[in-house]
């Protein structure tokens, strides 16, 4: 069982990202879950979303998890949210920031000694999509760090997930995924 926790602000697309990832992974014959804690969260409120992936049908409906990956798509949440909650020794962090990995760890000593990767999903989405929607770039970074899928395969699969959008939006998302894939450190 692979488990992923997203830290996001409501409106940044974590739920869409988690569902998009579930959609792509399901095409490979695996079983998936994508869910979130909503409550009565308003746009901008800190929230978490989750993915589970397994070779067998997923019966577990508890919300609690020890994540294999923690994806932080809002830079501020690294400072204000408990992103290391219920971590394992092997948990990998992919964090949106304009800082280098060293600068980030210095600013947030809780990340010291952990498997931390950084990528600037905010700048990437502003440059490519034109809005601060950091979800698809984060998926590009996840593909690189996890090796889950090759870039080409993932981009093609995401095209069908995004099929309802105009071509311009799809192209911008593809560029965002690629840039994050190549720039995550």
């Amino acid at each position, binding site marked *: 069982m692979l488990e992923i926790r997203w830290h996001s602000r409501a409106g940044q697309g974590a739920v869409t990202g*988690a*569902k998009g990832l*579930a*959609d792509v992974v*399901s*095409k490979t014959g695996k*079983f*998936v*879950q*994508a*869910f*979130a804690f*909503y*409550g*009565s969260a308003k746009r901008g409120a800190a929230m978490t979303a989750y993915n589970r992936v397994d070779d067998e*049908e*997923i*019966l*577990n*409906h*508890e*919300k*609690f998890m020890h994540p294999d990956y923690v994806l932080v798509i809002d830079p501020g949440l690294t400072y204000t949210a408990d992103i290391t909650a219920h971590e394992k020794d092997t948990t990998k962090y992919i964090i949106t920031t304009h800082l280098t990995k060293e600068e980030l760890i210095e600013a947030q000593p809780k990340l010291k000694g952990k498997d931390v990767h950084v990528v600037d999903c905010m700048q990437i989405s502003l440059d490519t999509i034109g809005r601060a929607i950091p979800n698809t770039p984060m998926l590009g970074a996840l593909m690189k760090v996890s090796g889950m899928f090759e870039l080409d395969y993932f981009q093609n699969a995401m095209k069908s997930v995004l099929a309802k959008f105009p071509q311009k939006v799809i192209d911008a998302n593809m560029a965002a995924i690629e840039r994050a894939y190549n720039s995550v450190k």
Partner: protein
Amino acid sequence: MAEKMELNEMEVWDGNMAASQALRQAQVDVVAAYPITPSTPIVQNYGSFLANGYIDGEFVMVESEHAAMSGCVGAAAAGGRVATATSSQGFALMAEVLYQASGMRLPIVLTVVNRALAAPLNVNGDHSDMYLGRDSGWIQLDAFNSQQAYDLTLMAFRIGEDHNVRLPVMVHQDGFITSHTAENVRPLSDDEAYEFVGDYKPMNAMLDLAKPVTYGVQTEEDWHFEHKARQHADLMTKVFGKVEEVFDAFAEKTGRKYNIVEEYLMDDAEVAIVALGTTVETAEMVAKMMREEGIKAGVVAPRLFRPWPYEQIKKALSKVKAVACLDRSSPNGALGALYNEVTASLYQSDNHPVITNYIYGLGGRDFTIDHAKEIFKELDANAKEGRPTTPLQQFVGLRGPKLSFY
């Protein structure tokens, strides 16, 4: 003529999408609805299907859930296939009209996304609204995941609309834990689904002007009792066979076999959890884990909550030594509903296991693997002792000092 929708063999849908797709495929004549969290997306998706040409039926926007169910009653009495969706406070506001619908024997399908009842206000999942409906004269089916929410919604039409049954049907799913969790769902094609559901055959339709009928009459002490007794008798005698028949037909079509009472690892189980909703699947997973620790654990889950499957429950629990009934609703001054029903079912049985009650998960409080493990361990102790080793009713996952009664 509505457009057909191309669906993948495997979709990733949340429970709401699953329910709205099933409503679309059943070619419902009238949906009258007033959206409420967490079932809003059912109505929203349905409206979007309609706007995009995938639905021929009418969508009636109304001013409240009371009006939504009233609209459904009118449309069903007129002779149409009718469905709607609701949750929680909306369900509570519908309550008056729920009894009207079942009393008039109108086979409406209501997809209920279970949510807590205020106060305090809470949008998350528990079974308070489902339990509120249990004396309303409706058939109540319960889905434990998104696939089942889809399958049971399709089957609900065929069960309720049968001329020997003619009763409204609720299909329940857990708020957020199912309704907003995207999972693998294998849908039928539009043609296959509609072929399974079948054309609606109205009975005593008001719009059949050649044969005038009256709905919503007044009967006092002269006839009221006979009407209510007839309805109860049909619930007790005509529903189980029909449900089994539809479950069998569905299994033949899809390979997915449903049972009036679902059993997991019950062949040799000595202890069992009885539960509803997503908790059933979590408990199944934990039952398997417990066996590695030497505890012969199993799970029993009523797929049909009303009419209550008295005989099937008795049979499913005929060999166990200890049973935990898990209620996700505050009983507010009693033992939990599942506890009461299961205990009543087993009182006439040859087997008399130790039965205890757990209240859990109110307002969406997480039900974890560790909770289920703890319950199985307590059951194991009860089985070994042959008597309760814990208080009869305990609260699980509650903060603060342990709360228990009796």
